[in-house]
């Protein structure tokens, strides 16, 4: 099935009443989650995962992904109107977005953010169609060594890009990998690190870990910060239209932001956040008037808002074509697919085309729904901010607890949730990013399986395992990413040291 044929088939799947409703609910919840500071898309997806168990896999995926990209739309609203990022991907937007609000151009900023998100989301979906299908064709030739190399390379790259110290990221990776070894060994059925607990034989479930690290930790931080009331600016529908000059200034940044975002999304790491910084800096560099940035330049809203939406689409490519998630959000989508008995990877397109193409087509529909929802209803979404935050936080916490319990009706999941909630809170206080832990927990069992298979195939020869053209090419990327920056620093150091003498 070619991309266009597949997309046409996908629309027949995505346009069924159930899937349309799932898409609408997903983007609605996503927008609300994006608007509310403190509650991120990852926590919301983890929270709603148990409620998708009874749904068709395509419907579940459509709803959960809707939350993810919907949050990117919603996050800009809070950044522009309140000067507080609704979620991490909207931090850069507030630099110019809030300045535009102060100048009375909030409506134009919101409109450009929504249109930019729509264009970027659509460009991203075209990217998924082309790249995922191509990569899946290539991935059919991959054996266990290549998959091991991708997982290892992904973790190494993620450690480099997740921000902060590489050593801290490695600690997170080690914890994630160690957690992934808890439970029954799939080959010998030997119980490892279970300390006699039967419940632990099933391993450590991803969802309570994510809910704890992202949901509970966020609520603990909210509790610590106390109740704060936001000063909310109201915007009328007629104020939403940008001027002709603002449109003219925005088209190119939207285009560049879309491409930058999609490419960044393919790389392991916090793509949605990273892409906004790259897109913003790029616009500043190419602008003839960079001094306007930070003082209400519309390009400073258009580029990052386009980039974060395109990045969410880019992040879907490795998940759908290789079955490998490079971010906590895509890890949850992977979890949803596995729970529904699907094996994400290159064969997904061939074996379950209704899931793959239905999901891709739903992203077109979802982006269109978001455009309709976000512009006229901006006032309604902003009014969500008037809810007392401590009430919302308490109710979210209760939902986390019931959601974690309902995963496998186990009290152990509740304790895991609380434990990782406290751990996630401590990590935030120490400024350590938790995403390498989550990705390592997902990739760990796959790494172990593929490593054991590879060594079995090559009769224990590591050289034979690595000396395959594809494996070498895959491993070269993270090795270069890790080795080149320190080498460049080393080369520069003597020059700076001798500079005063010269």
């Amino acid at each position: 099935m070619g991309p266009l044929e597949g997309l046409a088939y996908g629309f027949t799947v995505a346009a069924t009443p159930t899937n349309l409703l799932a898409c609408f609910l997903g983007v609605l919840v996503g927008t609300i989650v994006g608007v509310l500071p403190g509650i991120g898309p990852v926590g919301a997806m983890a929270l709603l995962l148990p409620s998708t168990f009874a749904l068709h896999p395509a419907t579940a995926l459509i709803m959960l992904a809707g939350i993810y990209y919907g949050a990117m739309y919603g996050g800009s609203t809070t950044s522009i109107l309140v000067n507080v990022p609704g979620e991490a991907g909207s931090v850069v937007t507030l630099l110019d977005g809030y300045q535009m609000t102060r100048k009375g151009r909030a409506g134009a900023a919101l409109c450009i953010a929504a249109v930019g998100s729509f264009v970027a989301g659509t460009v991203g979906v075209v990217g998924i169609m082309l790249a995922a299908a191509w990569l899946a064709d290539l991935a059919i030739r991959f054996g266990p060594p290549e998959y091991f190399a991708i997982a290892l390379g992904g973790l190494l790259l993620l450690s480099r890009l997740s921000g902060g110290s590489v050593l801290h990221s490695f600690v997170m990776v080690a914890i994630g990998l160690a957690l992934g070894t808890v439970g029954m060994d799939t080959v010998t059925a030997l119980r490892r690190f279970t300390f006699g607990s039967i419940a632990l034989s099933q391993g450590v479930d991803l969802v309570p870990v994510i809910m704890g690290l992202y949901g509970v930790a966020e609520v603990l931080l909210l509790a610590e910060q106390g109740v704060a009331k936001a000063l909310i600016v109201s915007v009328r529908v007629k104020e939403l239209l940008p001027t002709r000059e603002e449109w003219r200034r925005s088209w190119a940044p939207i285009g560049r932001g879309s491409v930058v975002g999609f490419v960044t999304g393919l790389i392991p790491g916090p793509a949605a956040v990273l892409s906004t910084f790259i897109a913003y800096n790029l616009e500043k560099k190419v602008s003839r008037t960079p001094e306007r940035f930070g003082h209400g330049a519309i390009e400073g809203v258009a580029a990052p808002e386009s980039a974060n939406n395109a990045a969410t689409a880019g992040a879907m490519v490795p998940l759908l074509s290789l079955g490998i998630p490079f971010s906590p959000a895509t890890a949850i989508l992977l979890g949803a697919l596995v729970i529904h008995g699907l094996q994400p990877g290159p064969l997904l397109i061939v074996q379950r085309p209704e899931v793959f193409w239905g999901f891709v087509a739903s992203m077109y529909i979802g982006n269109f729904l978001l455009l309709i929802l976000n512009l006229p209803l901006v006032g309604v979404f902003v009014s969500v901010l008037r809810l007392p935050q401590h009430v919302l936080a308490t109710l979210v916490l209760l939902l986390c607890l019931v959601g974690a319990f309902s995963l496998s009706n186990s009290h152990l999941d509740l304790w895991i949730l609380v434990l990782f909630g406290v751990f996630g809170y401590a990590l935030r206080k120490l400024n350590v990013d938790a995403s390498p832990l989550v990705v390592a927990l997902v990739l760990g069992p796959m790494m172990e399986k593929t490593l054991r298979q590879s060594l079995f195939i090559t009769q224990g020869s590591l050289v034979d395992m690595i000396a395959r053209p594809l494996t070498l090419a895959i491993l070269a990327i993270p090795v270069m990413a890790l080795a080149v920056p320190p080498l460049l620093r080393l080369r520069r150091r003597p020059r700076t040291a001798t500079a005063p003498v010269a």
Partner: protein
Amino acid sequence: MLERVVALVVLAVAGVYLRLALALPYGTTARPGPGFFPTLVGIFACVVGAGMMVAAFRAPMRARCAHAAASETAGRTRALSTVVVLVAFCALMPWLGYPIVAFGFVTVLLQRLGSSWRAAGIIGVVAAVVSFYVFGVLLDVPLPRGPWSS
């Protein structure tokens, strides 16, 4: 100081994990056993822990603030009380059942975070009843009902 404590804890936990991993059957490199991958992870964790230790001891000690601001202490107390209420929820749910524990959880937490007892109690009742109905009745999650269920 904090960095050194964290590095020490990481190294100690990594050491215990490696010790447990070494007790598992390792197999051979051609036929790796269930202990093969955990051993590699354990070695990696110990190396990273040692690296943290070196980095922490090479970095200059930062002066510790003698007195935390009152607002900071109050914030930490609120976060700590949230953790205590969460732990109480997990510990009491099997004995008292979900509805009562959910009511107590929401009421106490809201009051601790700034609501009046009356408002907290009303929200507590509504949250416990609605969540029990949605999850326990509509979605069939076997939430513990406590000693009062027959």
